[in-house]
């Protein structure tokens, strides 16, 4: 069923397969081009930040100036001129809107076009029912439909609006933009910001720490199971800008939160830079589930334009019995450089990484994970599915390591690659470091193409070549798809079909 839809979708957008490539014509306020201490001060002043925050940024900027761009990843691109970018861009018409009604209708239109429902009442159990107000606004007292999603919408450098805030407040959950968190909950931010990814962690993380403009902040109090999915939607719109957002999620003792992230950008000839940092902190018995569907503009078939996606994502399982799970679907971006990691510090903590990375055209993906076992009886699981088509290169790069004191650490890694066509490349670069005999590590990897037998079977049942490929690929990635929240799963299946369009025949 879903596969037939995929095929139809592909046909619909025959000419331009990237359906989010439109541009919103909205006046924006831009910082002058270039990066200097003054720009860092400018951004900090724009956000009315406290002095300690500015100092923190300046410290990061100083560290960044002395760092070299990393070159170890299997990606190649022209040198980025960091002085030729705007480090801050904000839609002009938003002097801190208090509610949705005050948000520029053009912005709402943009999100509607992207299929992101900001009007809270529009979503109920995953089915959009226009105008239905229903029990959501009443005192429902705890029982919530599972399909409800709170959204933090980030447009270029600023968070436009965060929905369902009041509802979440009742449960003590804080969900807001990080600039707001800096004003309302400075003690929480000060305590945790940079505690997982320090300012000088790597080149792009340092750059982000210096100039990050917005992002989401989540705090789930002890013992609370967050009543709905939280989500952020990132949209890059302005020309020649870089987007640098920072997300900080703290799950206090015994809490649970599921967080979704989506991203798109307009079709442009020149490449744009996106360097984000995500920090997750799970205290004792807490669980964080973080899902990403990354669909930045991948550039055209000849590799012109597209987003350079250099992201640092790291989770810290700080408390005993904590758990962090990363699920990612990577279909967009010209270049992806991304390694969501888990530091398994707490005893009995668990880290998971599920990934689908699809590359087509001239895309280059270098992605994977790091599982650092430090505590006793920690376990981790890595399932990575890479699909390379066209003239793309798709690399899995991962590290599993057990410290000397990480008694009884367990890891299972499986990374499979699928090649479609003979012009693409699929690479696997795993690092395994075991410093204790009590650790049990298992790693397996395979690379193959879609077997002729499978194709023959499907086509003998009347499927066209493209339909057959979509069906087989969806089967190939099933282990990971199952980890996605319901709302994302259906979308992702379609996305896979679209991403692979033109890869056969």
């Amino acid at each position, binding site marked *: 069923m879903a596969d037939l839809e995929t095929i139809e979708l592909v046909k619909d957008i025959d000419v331009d397969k990237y359906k989010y490539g439109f541009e919103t014509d909205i006046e924006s306020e831009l910082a002058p081009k270039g990066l200097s201490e003054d720009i860092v001060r400018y951004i900090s002043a724009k956000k009315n930040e406290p002095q300690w925050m500015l100092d923190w940024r300046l410290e990061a900027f100083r560290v960044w100036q002395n760092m070299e761009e990393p070159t170890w990843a299997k990606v190649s691109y022209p040198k980025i001129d960091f002085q030729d970018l705007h480090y801050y861009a904000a839609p002009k018409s938003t002097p801190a809107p208090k509610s949705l009604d005050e948000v520029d209708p053009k912005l709402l239109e943009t999100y509607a076009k992207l299929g992101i429902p900001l009007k809270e009442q529009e979503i109920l159990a995953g089915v959009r029912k226009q105008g239905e107000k229903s029990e959501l606004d009443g005192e429902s007292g705890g029982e919530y439909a599972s399909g409800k999603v709170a959204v933090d919408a980030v447009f270029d450098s600023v968070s436009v609006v965060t929905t369902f805030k009041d509802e979440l407040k009742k449960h003590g959950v804080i969900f807001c933009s990080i600039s707001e968190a800096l004003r309302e909950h400075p003690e929480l931010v000060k305590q945790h910001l940079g505690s997982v990814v320090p300012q000088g962690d790597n080149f792009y993380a340092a750059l982000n720490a210096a100039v990050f403009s917005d992002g989401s902040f989540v705090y789930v109090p002890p013992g609370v199971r967050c009543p709905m999915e939280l989500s952020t939607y990132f949209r890059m719109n302005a020309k020649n800008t870089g987007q640098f957002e920072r997300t900080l999620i703290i799950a206090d003792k015994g809490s649970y939160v599921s967080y979704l992230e989506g991203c798109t950008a307009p079709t442009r000839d020149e490449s744009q830079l996106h360097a984000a940092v995500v920090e997750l902190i799970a205290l004792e018995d807490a669980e964080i589930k973080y899902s990403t569907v990354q669909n930045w503009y991948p550039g055209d078939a000849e590799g012109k334009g597209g987003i350079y996606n250099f992201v640092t994502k790291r989770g810290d399982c700080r408390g005993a019995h904590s758990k962090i799970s990363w699920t990612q679907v990577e279909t967009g971006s010209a270049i992806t450089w991304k390694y969501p990691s888990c530091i398994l510090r707490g005893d009995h903590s668990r880290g998971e990484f599920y990934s689908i990375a699809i590359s087509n055209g001239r895309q280059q993906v270098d992605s994977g994970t790091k599982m650092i076992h430090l505590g006793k009886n920690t376990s981790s699981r890595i399932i990575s599915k890479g699909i390379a088509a066209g003239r793309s290169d798709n690399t899995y790069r991962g590290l599993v390591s057990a410290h000397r004191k990480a008694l009884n650490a367990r890891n299972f890694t499986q990374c499979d690659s699928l*090649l479609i066509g003979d012009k693409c490349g699929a690479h696997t670069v795993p690092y395994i*470091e075991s410093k204790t005999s009590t650790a049990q590590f298992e*790693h397996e990897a395979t690379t193959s193409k879609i077997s002729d037998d499978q194709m023959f079977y499907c086509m003998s049942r009347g499927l066209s070549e493209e339909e057959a490929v979509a069906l087989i690929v969806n089967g190939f990635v099933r282990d990971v798809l199952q980890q996605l929240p319901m709302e994302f799963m259906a979308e992702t299946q379609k996305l896979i079909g679209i991403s692979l369009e033109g890869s056969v025949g």
Partner: protein
Amino acid sequence: MSALLPRTAAEDSLGVSLPNRRSEEWKWTDLRRLVTAPYARKIVAARDADIDRLVASSPFASVKAKRIIIVNGVYDAKRSQLPRGEINAVVPLADDVIVGIGSKLEASGVSLVFDGNADLPVEIVHVATGAAQQAIGVRHTISVAANAAATVIETFVGEGDYLCNTVTEISLAEGARVDRIKAEVESPEATHLSHVIATLAATAMLRDFTLTSGAALNRQNGTLTFLGENADAQIAGTYLLKGRQHADTRLVVDHAVPHCTSRELFKCVMDDNARGIFQGKVIVRPDAQKTDGKQSSHALLLSEAAEFDAKPELEIYADDVVCGHGATAGDLNHDHMFYLKSRGIPEPDAKSLLIAAFAGEAFETIEHEGIRECLSAYAEGWLARR
């Protein structure tokens, strides 16, 4: 970067700059830091009694073979049963560290040319007689003509603190076959660096096995290139390490043409504070369709302080291939131990049995029964000394 670093004593005496861990290939074996002694090229005379004793200590002493004896890097005409031959076909690997050190040491060795099927294995015994901090360079070439077959053993034994640097080039013509067995049982204080470079023409066959059990510091590189279709290579190895031994193997298998098969199997046993490393890379070039490449490395850590690192890498540019790798690390299976103990086998014996079985899996790849038995006997002795 490295050009800016001050030269170490070892770099001075060897006349080369050594790589450090900032170089990806040497990430886990920081040669610059690990090679500290000022090893230098020296011509050293050895006593006959020492040579004879060390030659006899080869694990393959009981195998019926033709022998070539190399003493402190010099061909021993008196003891060798085969002529030296003319060394030819020097692969210039200018940027390779080990070949670079070899050329600085003016390495020489023997050239073996096999035109027909050799009736007996050839064993090259390398003896180092422990002159303080001597650097020995050896370079051999092995070439096997079309449809010919040969078995070559390279054995490394010695006493004292020295550096042994060895480069072996193997070239196999169409349909040729070589079974190469290497036993690295150097002195426990020694440093062993080696690089084997093999090229396979169409339908050629390589069976390669390396036992790594000697030397304090060990780095063995292997570069294998398929030049013709339907060739077949199998590379296996066993590590038996203890104390503070450090062993690192890096293999690059280059599938440059279609229809070739490669198999890698490494079984690594580490006791005490030993550290074992396996880095394997399989490259499948564009158009090398129907490649079948499998790589597996398994580590058995017998002590809490032992360490194993692995980097099994795949770099694939052709779509119609079957490639895979597997890597595991852990201690002895508790269920297996329980089973054996419940059958009344005392714990130490049960352990030895399981370790021998684990390590022995790689021996099974060797066709020559006598050689296999010698290796099993060596493993038993190693276990008994543990």
